[in-house]
């Protein structure tokens, strides 16, 4: 009559799921730390040009975005298919950039203002005319740090 002889019938033990919430929380934390919130709805179609020398923007919180491109299908009836400028959540004209830059600058602290970067995200099929206008307006507002948004590729394969 040994103590160690198994008497009852064998059953596969269920997997303990008590730690599952912890695992999911860890994944959640990872996402919360690594991503940034979607701030604006894009109303223009964008496919960024490719560039092999694209560098990462270090301070995302200091960036303001100007989107330039053809309006998406649902807005084409109103705005046509010409390239449009989108600031925040609406289509704007060149003249509105001044106010936009002023308000973006206002939202930063005094010490960070010189490092404000304007990220120009323009579709690759845009003509330079509208971008030159935007650049000139930015110079007038002395927002001189700009970034041309681009996709990072290892080498451009067009040749």
């Amino acid at each position, binding site marked *: 009559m040994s103590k160690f002889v198994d008497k009852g019938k064998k059953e596969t033990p269920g997997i303990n*799921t*008590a730690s*599952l*919430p912890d695992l*999911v*929380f860890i*994944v*959640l934390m990872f*996402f*919360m730390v*690594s*991503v*940034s*919130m*979607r701030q604006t709805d894009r109303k223009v179609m964008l496919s*960024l*040009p*490719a*560039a*092999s*020398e*694209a*560098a*990462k*923007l270090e301070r*995302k919180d200091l*960036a303001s975005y100007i989107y330039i491109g053809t309006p998406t299908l649902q807005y084409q009836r109103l705005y046509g298919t010409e390239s449009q400028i989108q600031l925040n959540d609406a289509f704007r004209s060149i003249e509105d950039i001044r106010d936009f830059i002023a308000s973006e600058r206002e939202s930063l602290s005094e010490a960070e203002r010189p490092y404000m*970067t304007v*990220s120009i995200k*323009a*579709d*690759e*099929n*845009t*003509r*330079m*005319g509208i*971008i*030159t206008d935007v*650049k*000139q307006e*930015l*110079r*007038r507002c*002395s927002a*001189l*740090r*700009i*970034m*041309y*948004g*681009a*996709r*990072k590729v290892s080498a*451009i394969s*067009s*040749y």
Partner: protein
Amino acid sequence: MAAPRKTPEINGGSMADISFLMLIFFLVVSTMDKEEGLVRRLPVMPPENMEVEDMKVNRRNIIQVKVNAQDRLFAGNEIIDIAQLKNKIKEFMTNPNNDPNLPDKEVLFIEGFGDCLVSKGVISLQNDRGTSYSKYIEVQNELIRAVNELRDEWSMANYGRRYSRLSEEQQNIVRKAVPQSISEAEPKDVTKRRR
């Protein structure tokens, strides 16, 4: 006497479901797109009442890169292909044979390094209103690539390491020794229209 009452345990089984819900929420509202691009610095706008004065740069020290409305590329007064642009710029900036038509070099004292020959070359990039943005970025990219390669070569020669592996201080020195002097000129029509 009644047995001491046990506090009932909270069922933790639904915790996983709740955190999954939050996870899904974050996945939906957040963006993962990386902020990448070509960082440039625009020149200061001259005051409006001032005459636009052409920069007093010696002719040999400037190379004009123009992109016209048909996305054709001119560099130094000849039509070239974009594949040739990088080497042309590198040759222009280094001037290996001290060609009198290529830019002058000056001895500059750099703190932490000492005297160093620095090219005075300036790349002037001009575009037309009809140039496509993708071509413009491609050209910008080639120009930056040329400068980045020169910086890599310079730091390999002087520090034995690539530019990206240098310390902050050394990178500052390299930036001074190999300046990224790309000027975006005042916009004008590059394409001459015949009327």
